[in-house]
């Protein structure tokens, strides 16, 4: 059984962001990078499925500059068998449709039985790519899953809805799922597995060989939101801060009365 998991590298969201010179994306220098949180659940799900079935082969795919290979090695250490790095320094100029087209181009004719993606990326958050890939490949897709079971070619997934309700959906593989936070507990790679991962195949393919479509939309400007909240910002010594907050709570609320 061939399985594919698609992952993205994103900056730590606690970073102090700056804009790039064109003001069309954030400046990438000085950021700490990590695997998109949603994709960690996707990798874990793919590895669990691999462990459940016999003869599985799990490919991890990522689009981006060379730095994403570091993250891909983590996915390999978590249990993926091989990596396909789609090299693209201009990844941030691609819209979800182009990104999905590239993934579909890699996946077509390869006979992947299961494809796992995160439900969205933490930086752009469009929540489109997974569904688009499935639609391009003519596969059923179940989004926002917090539960997954596979038996005899049938997938039973739980979709998470607003208010914490879940809907139970069944479909037949081959299929694609987009993974939501809390689906599982992503494993930490062990040292032996990190060593093993170094010997696993990690191909690099230039995106120009795979991109055959044009974008449908363009980010024309990126900027910081205007600060609306006129809230008070307090900094300094902790003892002072606690005194200040107690005074504020006495003045503005009734909770300390």
């Amino acid at each position, binding site marked *: 059984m061939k399985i594919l998991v698609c992952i993205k590298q994103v900056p730590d969201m606690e970073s102090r962001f700056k804009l790039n010179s064109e003001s069309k994306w954030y400046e990438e220098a000085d950021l700490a990078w990590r695997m998109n949180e949603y994709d960690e659940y996707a990798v874990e799900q793919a590895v669990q499925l691999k462990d459940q079935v016999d003869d599985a082969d799990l490919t991890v795919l990522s689009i981006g500059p060379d730095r994403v290979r570091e993250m891909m090695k983590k996915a390999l250490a978590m249990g993926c068998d091989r990596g396909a790095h789609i090299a693209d320094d201009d990844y941030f100029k691609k819209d979800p449709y182009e990104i999905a087209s590239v993934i579909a181009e890699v996946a077509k004719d390869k006979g992947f039985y299961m494809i796992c993606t995160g439900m969205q990326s933490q930086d752009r958050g469009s929540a*489109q790519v997974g569904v688009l890939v499935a639609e391009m490949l003519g596969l059923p897709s179940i989004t926002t899953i917090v539960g997954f079971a596979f038996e005899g070619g049938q997938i039973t997934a739980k979709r998470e809805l607003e208010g914490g309700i879940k809907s139970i959906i069944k479909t037949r593989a081959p299929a694609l799922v987009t993974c939501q936070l809390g689906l599982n507990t992503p494993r930490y790679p062990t040292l032996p597995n990190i060593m093993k991962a170094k010997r696993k195949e990690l191909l690099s393919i230039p995106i120009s060989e795979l991109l055959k479509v044009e974008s449908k939309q363009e*980010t024309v400007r990126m900027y910081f939101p205007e600060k609306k909240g006129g809230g008070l910002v307090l900094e300094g010594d902790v003892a002072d801060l606690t005194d200040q907050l107690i005074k504020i709570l006495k003045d503005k609320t009734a909770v300390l009365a």
Partner: protein
Amino acid sequence: MKILLVAEYRDGELLNNSYELVAFAGQLGADSAMFLVGSEGVLPAYNGTLYLADVDKYGEFNPAVHKQLLLDVIAKEQPDMVVFAHSSYGWDLAPRISLALNVAHVSEVIDIVDGVPVVPACNSKLRCDVKAKTAQMVLTLQGGAFGLEDHPTGNPTVVPINTETASEMEFCGYEEAEPGGVDLSKAEVIVSAGRGIGKPENMEMIEELAKALKGEYGTSRPVVDSEWADHTRQVGTTGQTVSPKLYVACGISGAIQHLAGMKKSEFIVAINTDRDAPIGEVADVLIVADLKEFVPAMTEKINNL
């Protein structure tokens, strides 16, 4: 301009976010029509054409079938925009539609400025103007961004719709959120822990502060996902919605899904090491400090009052 609004129906009810779509069309001064897989018995308060597919026949969730029903209506109406809520229904169906139409698709729109959709990036720390290159476009709207009509009124002109499309998925019903636990909506004070607490042992200091303030403790989602607290404590779109007199967010960044559950609180205090954390947008007071130092110190001072 003509907009097609994709309303939502769940468990026998029309969802309120459908009226956010109506408000959006109103703000753009556009003509609209509505699409709904729902029921004759539960019609939206809406003056306009409602293309209605029978939910008993087509199911509340059935992407391939809903997609075909919607594509047929789009072919007939030729709208400039097809608009969904950015919800579990909307973000699932919208990409299927934009791909079939071969048009631009902008997700989680919070504003339209000079015809260009504005979307958040990086947990709301940044904004992007995203310009469509196609004449027609598909949008999903961030919950709450365009408001809600106060008292929606009206009677739609119902046009029944049908399709022969076969389903590739089976919808087997709902699983309710686990019952039990605390009803946070009744608490006057809530002290919530976010991922910033760092480790499960630090839940204790959050509970202590909640106790000192005679309130309850809550959490953001990652704390529940990591099993540091019971899921009935989660605040947000997929947890509880609360509006206490005081909400203290400790180590919570302020993602939109968390804000949706607590931004109506009367007074909000945030404790965060990141001065730029989006929680600052809703907080009355943002304390830039390490919660591991600040929270125990605060508890001690309150207990000594």
